[in-house]
């Protein structure tokens, strides 16, 4: 016979104001198996908890029902109290009579009646509760960072600093990401390469960090604390251990006309290349789409000039399998393709460029060695028009609905730097709003307007038409003056919206991490858990979670590292014991549960069963890995034979609650 204790909380007047708590305690005291029922001002207070603990001991309770606030608030408090006096913590149930009763009803009779029914449902449930023990799983004390941009680099460095091993997987031949392509950074105007490249070198030299460049995540299995990741190392046809990065091959390669993606196709590289001078690792890579030797078997110049003998045309993709306790996603972003906006004539004129192309044109390592020249004729532009919000803050049919966040500031930077270097240039910026929240950001923008004389015009650019004389006619509206403008421009710069990298969506599927409609990773809580994914053990760093500038990315990356370190210092993780389990006698091994399981927690085992006639029979039955199961219950409903059930929320428990409510 079970012995249930019921504790009704007043919560000051929060509950007692609309619910007659004494009447609730009396009514519930008459329920089946209830041996003790009382009410008290604050159950969560120390004296309230002591009341529960003493009663459990004195009355030898086997189950506890607390009628109080939401279980999301104090379930753990009361479970801990029960556990401290030897009652299994999962023998405690909460009836939510505050958020879902006293606070939403005004009529005292009605609210009291409802509180009694909710209490009865909780009693009905607790009678069917079983003692559960949380399992433990070990933690592999290594982390994987996917993406080697500034976010990934910062997270990796911080984790390594705490003494844990970190692997970085980067799909490009070098780490560094988008920040390597940027010339100067707002609002301080320090050079991006000067602050980034030392961090890249730190990564390469740190003995705790291993860089898998030119590699991709192929598959992920496992769960928090114990992931197994298969990494695909793409063939770069150069032996990384032998290549010294001298660059001789990249000078001698006869394939000279390969568009250089680092400079966004504005100049050319060879078929064997090192992306840029400070690349990490500084190792050459052969582009198989353009290499004559790989395509036709004719050439081999690079292998002849390489003194280190690093060239290996027979290299193939290889796979490595590694174990990790935590995975950090830092897949970053790309600017959107602006050619779909025909009105800006991006495809028609070479002098309509994106902001990232503008960065390359002003960078000393760029195609023009840092002199701002028109891509079409190499002449100095005298009038430059910047167009803001290209594809950002649009209708869903036209572009992205969100604000890309960084464009206002980098356009102010571009405008300011142009006016500083070339004071004879007229600079116009067309904007919808100028958004500059951030430390020293608005001051920076005001300097562009007030000290550098950049013409900021509130309005939209309607059309860019290339003219016969090589200029561009920019037709725009000035919303403040309420007039149509025509500007004869030499260069038009489009502030393209940013979007998550295309690799993010398939990666999210591999990680079972959720994403929003824009393909940004979802955080566990938008305010309180911003660097964790709802999937345990997956952490988010940088723009993969939402648009961010560099200072924000770095702070998020460090925050992410702190969370990863917090996980990796643990030797063991406690698992949620409310997991699915299969009744082997009823299971017929149909595989339907495994099909719906989002975590791959269900496997099948061959088991021997003794039959009534003393023979044995081997049958295939489902087996749930309790460390992987998250307890959603999808399998319990799918199971056609009713063999699957969920601890803590069993079929009988839920039906008992239904019965109690409908009585």
């Amino acid at each position, binding site marked *: 016979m079970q012995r249930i204790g019921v504790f009704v909380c007043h919560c000051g007047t929060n509950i007692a104001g609309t619910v007659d708590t004494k009447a609730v305690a009396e009514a519930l005291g008459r329920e089946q198996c209830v041996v003790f029922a009382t009410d008290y001002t604050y159950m969560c207070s120390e004296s309230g908890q002591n009341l529960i603990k003493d009663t459990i001991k004195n009355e030898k309770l086997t189950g506890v029902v607390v009628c109080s606030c*939401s*279980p*999301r608030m104090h379930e753990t408090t009361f479970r801990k109290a029960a556990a401290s006096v030897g009652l299994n913590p999962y023998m405690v149930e909460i009836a*939510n009579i*505050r*958020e*879902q*009763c006293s*606070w*939403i*009803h*005004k*009529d005292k009779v*009605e*609210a009291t*009646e*409802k509180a009694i*029914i*909710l209490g009865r*449902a909780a009693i009905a449930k607790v009678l069917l509760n079983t003692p559960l023990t949380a399992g433990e799983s070990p933690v592999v004390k290594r982390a994987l960072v996917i993406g080697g941009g500034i976010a990934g680099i910062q997270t990796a460095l911080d984790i390594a600093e705490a003494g844990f091993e970190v692997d970085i997987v980067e799909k490009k031949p070098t780490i560094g990401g988008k920040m390597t392509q940027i010339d100067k950074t707002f609002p301080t105007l320090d050079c991006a390469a000067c602050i980034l490249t030392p961090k890249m070198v730190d990564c390469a030299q740190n003995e705790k960090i291993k860089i898998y460049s030119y590699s991709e995540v192929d598959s992920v299995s496992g769960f928090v604390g114990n992931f197994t990741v298969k990494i695909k190392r793409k063939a770069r046809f150069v032996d990384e251990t032998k290549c010294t990065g001298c660059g001789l091959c990249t000078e001698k390669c006869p394939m000279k006309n390969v568009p250089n993606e680092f400079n966004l196709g504005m100049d050319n590289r060879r078929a064997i290349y090192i992306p840029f001078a400070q690349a990490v690792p500084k190792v050459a890579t052969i582009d198989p789409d353009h290499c004559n030797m790989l395509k036709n078997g004719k050439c081999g110049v690079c292998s002849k000039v390489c003194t280190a003998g690093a060239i290996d045309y027979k290299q193939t993709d290889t796979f490595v399998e590694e174990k990790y306790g935590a995975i950090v996603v830092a897949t970053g972003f790309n600017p959107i393709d602006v050619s779909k906006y025909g009105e800006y004539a991006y495809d028609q004129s070479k002098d309509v460029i994106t902001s990232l192309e503008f960065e390359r044109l002003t960078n000393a390592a760029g195609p023009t060695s840092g002199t701002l020249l028109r891509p079409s004729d190499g002449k100095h532009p005298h009038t430059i028009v910047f167009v803001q919000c290209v594809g950002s803050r649009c209708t869903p049919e036209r572009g992205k609905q969100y604000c890309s966040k960084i464009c206002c500031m980098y356009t102010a930077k571009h405008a300011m730097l142009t006016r500083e270097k070339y004071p004879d240039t007229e600079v116009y910026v067309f904007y919808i709003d100028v958004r500059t929240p951030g430390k020293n950001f608005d001051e920076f923008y005001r300097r562009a307007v007030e000290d550098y004389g950049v013409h900021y015009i509130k309005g939209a650019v309607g059309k860019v038409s290339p003219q016969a004389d090589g200029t561009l006619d920019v037709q725009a509206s000035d919303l403040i003056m309420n007039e149509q403008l025509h500007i004869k421009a030499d260069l038009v710069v489009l502030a393209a919206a940013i979007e998550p990298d295309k690799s993010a969506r398939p990666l999210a599927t591999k990680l*079972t991490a*959720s*994403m*929003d*409609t824009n393909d940004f990773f*979802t955080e566990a809580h938008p305010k309180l858990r911003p660097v964790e994914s*709802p*999937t345990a053990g997956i952490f988010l760093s940088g723009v993969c979670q939402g648009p961010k500038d560099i200072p924000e990315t770095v702070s998020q990356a460090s925050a992410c590292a702190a969370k990863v370190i917090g996980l990796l210092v643990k030797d063991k993780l406690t698992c949620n014991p*409310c997991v699915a389990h299969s009744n082997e006698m009823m299971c017929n091994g149909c595989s339907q549960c495994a099909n*719906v399981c*989002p975590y791959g927690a269900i496997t099948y085992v061959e088991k021997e069963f003794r039959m009534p006639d003393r023979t044995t029979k081997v049958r295939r039955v489902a087996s749930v890995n309790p460390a992987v199961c*998250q*307890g*959603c*219950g*999808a399998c*319990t*409903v*799918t199971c056609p034979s009713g063999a699957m059930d*969920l601890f803590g*929320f069993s*079929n009988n428990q*839920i*039906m008992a*609650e*239904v*019965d109690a*409510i*409908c*009585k």
Partner: protein
Amino acid sequence: MQMSENEKFVPTIVAFCCNWCSYAGADLSGTNRLQYPANVKIIRVPCSCRVNPMFILRAFQRGADGVILCGCHPGDCHYTSGNFYARRRMTLLFSMLDYLGIERNRTRVEWVSAAEGAKFAATMNSFAEEITKLGPNRRLEDLRCKK
């Protein structure tokens, strides 16, 4: 079904709410003191996909007049895809109930996020109003269950 003193029909409504979104949304509507009828009783489940169609039939059998299932918005499920399973299962169950001659409006699926306290209250108000209009569930209630 229960009748109050002046014999005004007060329906019994069971709401299944997933732990991560809708139950939290219900808590939020409480925190914001948004009123909805006291005859709505909430049962907490880990995910909307934990709700077996049998639970809904059981509720009707035991005398519920309306059953509503609330989960995370499609794509936002804590368990990635649970609410999609729930949506499919409920579509099938509802068409079966329809076939059996049970009014379509007695059952409903709604997506309520943890931030939508106001939506939760509004949903419960409109659902309770609808069930009150429909009157008691006589077709599926098994009177042998009533002592």
